[in-house]
């Protein structure tokens, strides 16, 4: 059976890079005793697929992993068995059964499905150059509203060879000062930030950003360009980014799913975001 698992990564595990998380789950699956399918060859590894790598230092309540199991289990048992072997800093929230792949059918890659993610960006209670970082952000809400009120936000993106200018505004699908302003997920928006760290200064903003393999915007880049625009020193380690949910865009999904439907959404730019576990 193919299963999609949604999990949280929080606390000290934010210092684990993506590859270490993959290795962690490969081991966790083996500890759980769930019968997982392995890749072929002389170095077989459990068949696990992850949605979108989380940046080092970021926490999340919206991480996804697909796995191929060789036996059928009740979904509740999968969650329970995995949580029994998790360390502090990892929590499995839910599991969803995926349709079986027909022979010869191309597997729907969870990475290719991923289109968007909600983030919370919060200012930590840390000092930067001898002054609490929050102090640099006076008039934050007005300034941030004005910043995102622009029709275009041009930033320089560095690649290996050159720097080019990009307009990041179209990659920001939504924003606001409460979680509900961006939320398309199930349940209360607060579910998406239940493992997020909170800070006394209360400065935070919510962002809905492109998070796909082609269009991708990191929350850090939004905050960096904001800081640049208002003369605030940018220190990424003094900001906490928390991913709340990861979505697929139904309108961009494989055509066979949308058969008979008009794909007007693509033309006029509207999108239909659905949390990955709902698919």
């Amino acid at each position: 059976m193919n299963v999609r698992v949604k999990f949280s990564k929080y606390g000290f595990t934010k210092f684990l890079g993506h590859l270490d998380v993959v290795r962690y789950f490969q081991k966790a699956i083996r500890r759980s005793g769930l019968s997982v399918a392995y890749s072929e060859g002389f170095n077989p590894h459990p068949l696990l697929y992850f949605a979108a790598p989380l940046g080092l230092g970021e926490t999340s309540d919206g991480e996804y992993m697909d796995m191929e199991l060789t036996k059928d289990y009740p979904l509740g048992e999968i969650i329970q068995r995995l949580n029994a072997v998790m360390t502090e800093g990892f929590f499995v929230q839910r599991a969803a059964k995926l349709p079986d792949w027909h022979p010869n059918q191309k597997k729907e890659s969870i990475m290719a499905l991923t289109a968007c993610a909600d983030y919370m960006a919060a200012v930590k209670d840390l000092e930067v150059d001898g002054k609490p970082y929050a102090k640099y952000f006076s008039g934050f809400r007005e300034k941030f509203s004005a910043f995102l009120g622009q029709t275009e936000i041009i930033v320089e993106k560095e690649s290996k060879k050159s720097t080019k200018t990009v307009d990041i505004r179209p990659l920001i699908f939504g924003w606001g000062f409460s979680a509900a302003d961006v939320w398309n997920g199930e349940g209360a928006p607060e579910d998406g930030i239940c493992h997020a760290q909170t800070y006394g200064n209360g400065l935070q903003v919510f962002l809905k950003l492109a998070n796909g393999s082609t269009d991708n915007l990191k929350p850090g880049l939004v905050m960096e360009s904001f800081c640049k625009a208002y003369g605030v020193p940018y220190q990424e380690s003094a900001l906490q980014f928390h991913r709340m949910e990861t979505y697929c865009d139904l309108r961009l999904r494989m055509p066979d799913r949308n058969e008979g439907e008009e794909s007007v959404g693509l033309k006029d730019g509207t999108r239909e975001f659905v949390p990955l576990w709902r698919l």
Partner: protein
Amino acid sequence: MRKLALPDDILLQIEKPARYTGGEVNSVMKDKEAVSIRFCMCFPDVYEVGMSHLGIQILYDMFNKREDTWCERVYSPWVDLDHIMRERNIPLFALESQDPVREFDFLGITLQYEMCYTNILQVLDLAGIPLLATERGEDDPIVIGGGPCSYNPEPIADFFDFFYIGEGETVYDQVLDAYKENKRNGGTRMDYLAKVAGIEGMYVPAFYDVTYHEDGTVASFAPNHPLAKPVIRKQVEMGLSDTFYPEKPVVPFIRAVQDRVVLEIQRGCIRGCRFCQAGMLYRPIRARDLAFLKERAKLMIQNTGMDEITLSSLSSSDYKELPELVYYLIEEFREQKINISLPSLRIDAFALDVMSKVQDIRKSSLTFAPEAGSQRMRNVINKGLTEENILQGASDAFAAGWNRVKLYFMLGLPGETKQDIGEIAELGNKIAECYYKLPKQVRRGKPEIVISTSFFVPKPFTPFQWVPMNAMEEFLQKQRIVSARLKEMRNGRSIRYNWHDADTTLMEGIFARGDRRLSKSILDAYRAGCIYDAWSEYFKFGLWMEIFKQNGVDPAFYTTRERAQDEIFPWDFIDAGITKEFLWREYQKGLAEVVTPNCRRACAGCGANSFHGGVCYEERENAKEAENEEKKNAPRQKQNPEKIEETSGKVREGGMDA
């Protein structure tokens, strides 16, 4: 949730922050208010190296089984964090609680190689513990040393409150109980050390005085405290199937050097290679029960989720039930795709069968360790591997599909000649010839043969502890001979040649047979900026030489000097089971090119039978069997029977192991 010792901004600017955050699978959390002893276990090197060490995993498990004790871990902060901690005055902390190490009752440091000595000082310094034991006060942790380098602890004696000589499973309970009792009675640090001195195997350096002859050698080594024992007897765990062994080893999040479950199948070695310190120190050989190993292997895989298990011992082929164990593991772990690795395996039919089942033949390589190029030299060092064994093993391996072979040799062995050295290249060439003897259609391109040479460092408690080490120029000269000979070989192009660094070898040579007077140089080197000497990018050889000079230390005194038979060595106060008489006898036999049979063939009288167990007692049962075999071989024995023994590869292959 645990509060981390380091703030986010530091953790996000250093390499691999997960080295310092703890919280790994199977790491142990306890309530610090509910325990009476806090023990911090340290491997003085970077996390990925330290986490690969089995000894700490065993002790960690053992200490944490005590309800009154919480054992945590600490490793050397990497140089990036080292700078920041000094700059911002952040005290070194333990991984589990993230509490400062200085608040602990004990800091136990494992000493696995000489090149970690300045890292010991780094750990003490960052922790805020005075570097010299004499300067520590009542509130400082008790600093304990253990591990292989504690068999000559003298060069670092000044930095430790005491050393635990031998295997940790035996008397640590006494050490900790004495601590509690002393605390209860309001005793001082000195009171405690006096109690420790009374426990078998514990060495408190402050309780001994050393005097020297005019020529620099030791004149006397004697206790200055009524409770200090004149001789410290090594601790040995004789019941290896009924002792501590972790069922739940800690699983690092980041990739460790040894990213696998380690199953120690036996301790000690029967081979008696004369250069090998481990083979002498860990006598007698003691095997763990097959049932014990099967059970632990299963539990450890279950509890860690690791995808590989490695069998650990000095010579796996000498574990009598190896085939049964290995075939069981292959079968048991087939479904979970667990990889099985078998280092230190003699290449024979069994080994090739097992390896073809567990490895990708096309990608893996086979390793031989002849250690010396000529048979004459192998007799000197008592390495019971004949050219015939090696060529047969290589031919079989090539026929089975391998085409990569690695060969390990040492340069600078006692009495080595140009001829002996040249034969290293010739052996490589002969192995390549074995490959070309295969029918053309079976070959897959060129064979890849890699020859690696290291330089021989004479070690305490080996028959070669009297031997002068080669000078640097000699080492380099010998290396050039190998290179040049390889160029002359017909198959030279199929052979790659790697060599070891001579600077590091010189340092190891100084410390391995060093004495107390070196502590000052190590301290000065650390103060001058030496740390991570085991890492070539940070090793400052020039600075070290400068510091030795300032301290009047002549490296040649410790390395290239030939020792007299009756010289008092700095480590002579340790009774490691093997006697000095045996070691001298073996040295003389080596010089005469006479081979000593392995412990299962005949007792060499090393002295380790004083531990009452292991192979020494097993031998009696097998005496008849050996006698019969001897009779069978009798017609062929024309020379000195000992000389015949070494060609007894046949015997080993046939009777003993397969």
